[in-house]
C-alpha cells in the first residue's frame, strides 16, 4: 500500500483548486491511500465545498505529521530536541527575555514569518519552567469584550493547528468548556458573553440543567445553597500538553537559527537616551537591536530594570491533580462562584484549579488553606471524589492586571516591547500573542488586533474588562 500525505491543507479558495487536483490524483491512482492534514473541521464555507465537491475525507485535525512517520517506521526517533548553543554572541538583532511559551512563540514567528534569525531567547531557568508548564491548559475564547473574543478566538484556532504547524505533538483535545451559573446575575452575563462570542464566530450557547446533565452526567446539580441554574457551553475549547508548547516553538525556532540560552538570567539593562543598548546577563553583556520582555510573574521586576513601572501585581496561583481514574468527564467544568474548575487529562488525572492566592507574593510555595478550598469545592461538584488522593500539587507566579487583560505593546523606550500581564489566562493566548507581538516588533507598528491591549489604556481609562469572564475560569 502506498500513501500520499498532503500537509498543511488550509481552507481557502486555492485549496478548493488543490482539492480538485487531489481528487484527480486519487481517481487516477486508486491504489494510493490519501491522507489530508490541516483541514479545519469547521462546518460551513470552504470545508463543506471541498468535501462535497471532492469527496475527500479529512484525517482528524490535530495529528502531527511527524508522529505518523515514526508510527510507521521501525526505528525510534533518537534525535535530541534541544541542543544547547555555545556561549552568547556579542550582539543580537532581537533579545527576548523569558523562555516561556510566549517568548519562544515570538522567536519562532520572527524567524519563520519575518525572516529575522539573529535572535536569542534568554531564560534564567529552563524553557517552559515558568507558568507555561504549570498551567491547567484551558484554551477557550468565551470572553465578554469583542476585542478579547477576537484575539482569543484566533488563538484557539491556531492551537487547533499547532501540532501540525510545528510537527510536535501537543495532544490537543477538543473537549469543550462548561461554565456554571449559580445565580441569575451570572446567567445574564452568560447571555451577553454568548451573544458577543457568537457574533465573532465562536461556538457557544447558554444551556439549561437538562443539557448540563447530558454533557456532564456525574455533576451534582443541587449543590447545597448554590444550586446550578444554567451553564455556558463552549464546544470550541481545547486542552493539551502545556510543556510541549514551549518545546515545539523552541525546537522549530532553533531549527531556523534562533539561539535559546537557558540558565541565563537578565540582571539589568543599559539605556542610552530612549533606547536599550545592552542587556546584562549572568553570562555576560550583549548588545541588542530590539528587546522583548515575556517573563510573566516577574514582569514588574524586569521592567523595573529599564525604569518602567507597570499596572501589575504578582500572586501565586495554585493547582493540583488527583490519582488517575477511568475517564468520566469529557469537558472542562468551571464554576466562578465556587472558585474551582476541574478537567480530566488524557492520563485520567483530574486537574483542579481555582483563583489566585489572597495576597501578593513572589514564591511558588503552596498553602494548605487554598488546597483545602479547591478540594472542598471540587467535591461539591463531584461528591464521589471525597476519597480520591491528591497526587501532585504546585503553584506559579501570575502577573495580574487590574482589568484581567494582557499588556502587549510598545513601552516608553523606543526598542523595548512588552508582552506581560498574562495573569491566570495567558496560556491560551500563546500562538496569537507570538504571531502579533512578532509582527509588531518586525514592523515597528502595533497591529490593529493588539491596539486595545497597550499599557496606555490605563492612562486613558480605556480598560478591557474581563474580570467576570476570567476569575477562576482561566
Amino acid at each position, binding site marked *: 500500500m502506498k500513501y500520499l500525505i498532503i500537509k498543511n491543507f488550509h481552507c481557502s479558495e486555492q485549496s478548493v483548486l488543490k482539492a480538485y487536483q487531489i481528487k484527480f490524483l486519487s481517481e487516477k491512482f486508486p491504489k494510493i491511500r490519501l491522507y489530508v492534514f490541516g483541514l479545519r473541521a469547521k462546518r460551513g464555507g470552504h470545508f463543506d465545498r471541498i468535501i462535497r465537491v471532492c469527496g475527500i475525507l479529512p484525517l482528524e485535525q490535530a495529528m502531527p505529521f511527524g508522529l505518523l512517520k515514526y508510527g510507521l517506521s521501525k526505528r525510534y526517533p533518537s534525535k535530541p530536541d534541544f541542543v544547547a548553543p555555545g556561549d552568547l554572541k556579542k550582539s543580537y538583532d532581537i533579545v527576548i527575555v523569558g523562555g516561556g511559551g510566549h517568548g519562544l512563540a515570538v522567536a519562532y514567528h520572527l524567524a519563520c514569518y519575518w525572516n529575522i534569525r539573529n535572535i536569542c531567547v534568554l531564560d534564567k531557568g529552563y524553557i517552559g519552567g515558568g507558568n507555561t508548564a504549570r498551567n491547567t491548559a484551558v484554551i477557550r475564547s468565551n470572553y465578554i469584550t469583542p476585542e478579547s473574543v477576537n484575539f482569543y478566538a484566533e488563538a484557539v484556532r491556531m492551537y487547533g493547528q499547532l501540532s501540525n504547524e510545528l510537527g510536535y505533538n501537543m495532544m490537543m483535545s477538543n473537549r469543550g468548556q462548561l461554565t456554571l451559573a449559580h445565580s441569575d446575575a451570572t446567567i445574564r452575563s452568560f447571555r451577553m458573553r454568548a451573544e458577543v462570542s457568537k457574533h465573532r464566530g465562536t461556538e457557544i450557547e447558554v444551556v439549561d440543567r437538562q443539557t448540563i446533565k447530558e454533557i456532564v452526567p456525574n455533576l451534582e446539580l443541587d449543590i447545597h445553597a448554590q444550586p446550578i441554574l444554567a451553564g455556558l457551553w463552549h464546544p470550541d475549547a481545547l486542552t493539551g500538553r502545556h510543556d510541549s508548547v514551549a518545546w515545539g516553538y523552541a525546537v522549530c525556532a532553533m531549527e531556523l537559527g534562533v539561539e535559546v540560552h537557558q540558565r541565563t538570567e537578565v540582571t539589568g539593562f543599559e539605556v542610552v537616551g530612549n533606547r536599550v543598548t545592552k542587556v546584562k546577563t549572568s553570562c555576560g553583556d550583549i548588545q541588542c537591536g530590539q528587546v522583548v520582555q515575556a517573563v510573566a510573574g516577574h514582569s514588574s521586576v524586569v521592567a523595573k530594570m529599564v525604569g518602567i*513601572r*507597570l499596572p501589575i501585581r504578582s500572586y501565586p496561583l495554585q493547582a493540583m491533580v488527583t490519582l488517575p481514574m477511568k475517564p468520566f468527564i469529557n469537558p472542562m467544568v468551571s464554576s466562578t462562584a465556587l472558585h474551582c474548575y476541574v478537567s480530566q487529562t488524557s492520563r485520567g488525572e483530574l486537574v483542579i484549579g481555582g483563583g489566585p492566592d489572597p495576597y*501578593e507574593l*513572589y*514564591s511558588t*510555595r503552596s498553602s494548605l*488553606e487554598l488546597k483545602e478550598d479547591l478540594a472542598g469545592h471540587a467535591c461539591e461538584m463531584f461528591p464521589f471524589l471525597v476519597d480520591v488522593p491528591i497526587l501532585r500539587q504546585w503553584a506559579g507566579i501570575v502577573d495580574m492586571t487590574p482589568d484581567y487583560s494582557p499588556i502587549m505593546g510598545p513601552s516608553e523606550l523606543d526598542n523595548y516591547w512588552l508582552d506581560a500581564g498574562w495573569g491566570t489566562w495567558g496560556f491560551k493566548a500563546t500562538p496569537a500573542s507570538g504571531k502579533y507581538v512578532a509582527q509588531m516588533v518586525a514592523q515597528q507598528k502595533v497591529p490593529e488586533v493588539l491596539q486595545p491591549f497597550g499599557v496606555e489604556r490605563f*492612562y486613558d*481609562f480605556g480598560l478591557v474588562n474581563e474580570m467576570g469572564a476570567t476569575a477562576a475560569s482561566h
Partner: protein
Amino acid sequence: MKVMHCPLNGPRNIAEFITFGEVNKMPVPDTVDDRAWAEFVFFANNTAGVVREWWCHTPTNYWFIADRHTVSDEILATYTIAELFPEPFNTGESDG
C-alpha cells in the same frame, strides 16, 4: 498554618486577615492630573522584597500595618497605625 501577629489580637491564622496593598500616599484628587491619578489607581511597585502594607483582621475589623517580605513570605513586623502615623492623615479634603 501561617500565623500573623495582630497588634490587637495577637498571633492568629493568616486566613483571618486581608490585605489592602502597599502603604502609599494618595495624591490630592483636586489638583493631581489624570496621568498621575491613573498611576495611583492602577499601577503598582510590585516589589520583590520588603513591602509595608495595610492589613485588616476581619473578625474584629481591626486595621494595622505590616512589613512583609514578598519573596520569602515572612512577616517581619506589625505596627499599629498610631505607631507609624502619629499625626492624623491629610487627605487634602477641607473640613467644611
